[in-house]
């Protein structure tokens, strides 16, 4: 099978742009990135399906000239999934805008706190030193 170079290049370009946008902070840019990348992947399926042919309907196109219907079915499924993903991400971006005033993917506060403790070489609040007193009672000093 000879692959179609133009399609492969288009797929590559779309996916590259998509990946660049997905690395952004803002959810709406990420969404555009996801849509671009998934369209790139859909084009990739066209590359995988081999040379283009007639519509794969029995009675309309003779067998050998049909294009492969299976990748088209898969692309169709992928398109439907991308559509619903786009709707969900938009909802989430809007909700984030309602709450925070922007739609940026935020850092984890707890992560930052633990990293800060480590940088300052401090024990976390949940660290404890146990001492044992004469009475047999455990003494916690913090």
């Amino acid at each position, binding site marked *: 099978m000879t692959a179609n170079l133009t399609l492969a290049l288009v797929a590559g370009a779309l996916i590259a742009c998509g990946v660049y946008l997905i690395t952004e902070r803002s959810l709406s840019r990420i969404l555009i990135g996801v849509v671009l990348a998934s369209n790139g992947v859909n084009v990739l399926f066209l590359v995988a399906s081999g040379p283009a042919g007639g519509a794969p309907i029995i009675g309309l196109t003779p067998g050998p000239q049909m294009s492969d219907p*299976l990748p088209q079915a898969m692309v169709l499924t992928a398109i439907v999934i991308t559509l619903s993903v786009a709707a969900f991400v938009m909802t989430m971006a809007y909700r984030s805008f309602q709450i925070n005033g922007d739609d940026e993917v935020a850092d984890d506060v707890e992560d930052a706190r633990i990293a800060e403790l480590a940088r300052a070489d401090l024990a976390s609040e949940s660290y404890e030193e146990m001492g044992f007193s004469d009475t047999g009672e455990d003494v916690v000093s913090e």
Partner: protein
Amino acid sequence: MNNLLAVPVLLCLFGAGATFLAGRHPGVQRAVSVTAVAAVCVVAGVLVWLTDSAPLVLWVGDWPQPLGIVLVADRLAALMLLVAALVSLAVLVYATGLDQDEVRRETPVSIFHPTFLLLVAGVSNAFLAGDLFNLFVSFELLLFASYVLLTMGGTKDRVRAGSVYVVVNLVSSALFLVALASCYAATGTVNLADLAVRLAELPAEVRGVLQVLLLTVFGLKAAVFPLSAWLPHSYPTAPAPVTAVFAGLLTKVGVYAIIRTQTLLFPTEPLSLLLGVVGIATMLLGILGAVAQGEIKRMLSFTLVSHIGYMVFGISLATSAALAGAIFYAAHHITIQATLFLVAGLIQRVGGSSSLDRLGGLARLSPLLGALFLVPAMNLAGIPPLSGFVAKLALLQAGVADAGPMAWALVAAGVVTSLLTLYAMAKVWNRAFWGVVPEQATARVTTLSRQGRLLPRLMVGSTLGLVVLALAFTVAAGPMYGYVERSATALFDRSYIAAVLSGGER
């Protein structure tokens, strides 16, 4: 008999539809979803029994083979399905208990049940899928349900956690599609059994690319080390039952997919070195992360990542003894990790917080809660004779039998991780269950117990059920391990391919 394979998925999908329609009748919703998942448990039990003689194959819609969609259950799939269904049932009962009292705050009832059933449908379908595309669709099904469950209520924290989770999974889905397109371009099929036959005829380089692509995709779902950062970031903010079912099922579906694709499609060249290094890193970095945490749910998320490393350990050795260990570990870990997250929910309820800084003296406030935490915690660390010990012992024995330098490194990392897990669990016990009871906790507990709402019966009952299930793994370790060993052996004798391609019953 083969039609039984479609039942778990269908039950959940119809259940989801019915509960969605009954949105205004929480009682009906609960009854329908509990019945559906309980029925899935029964069907999965029958499947475990049936598949022990031969794998079951169902060609859905009776399309010319091997073009149509095929559902396959071998021992591995049936066992995972059964454990997953039992855990989902317990979590569902727990959520029902939670419903009755925290409806307004935690889970808007009308969406929870349909989404949960869709999640179970996706998980069941992933275990039963016999072709890569169907596997992709079931991943999308369960991911979509998980997006909704994770961001349920749309509070600030959940939207933050949800956006990371959604973006990461979108990338992994796109990558999965790239892998699918490449597989189809190279072989002209997506049927797993057919792929296994045709991949063997390809040049080794092409096969290698496909193998690494698939491993990356499923590694991301399973949260294997370099791809695991999203998990502790997104799990802890969700309600307790949601986190429990995610922690139990979703990563294990990834592990299952790794086992399935690596052993079936690429039996001759396991990526032992890569998987070994990644397994060690996952175990050690995960558990070191856990030790540093001061919040119970976050700590449990890190132990979850860390213990995925044990399963990778088993897969990397690629012997049937090691895979038996990995499968047993997966079954044990689904149960135990879900239990611990449910207990974390109870801790939050009694203590009013899940941060170790604000908890104390829980063992005095509620000895029952202490027992519910201690048994699974020790089980996770691998104290004999609990199932965690059996699973770890099996993996360590397989490592020692292998005796290569990488196997010894894995054994060492496994032992260290087990010890550090014990340390992390002891830290929780020490801070949350011993020590002085904070004043506001006493007041809170008195008010709640006066209203009879401290530990609702359904919540405690379902958690207790899971603890007992994990103990049953110890009691029935003999027959269960025999079953697991047979399923691991079957992964290497190509009986799966034979069963699917021989035509099967239609």
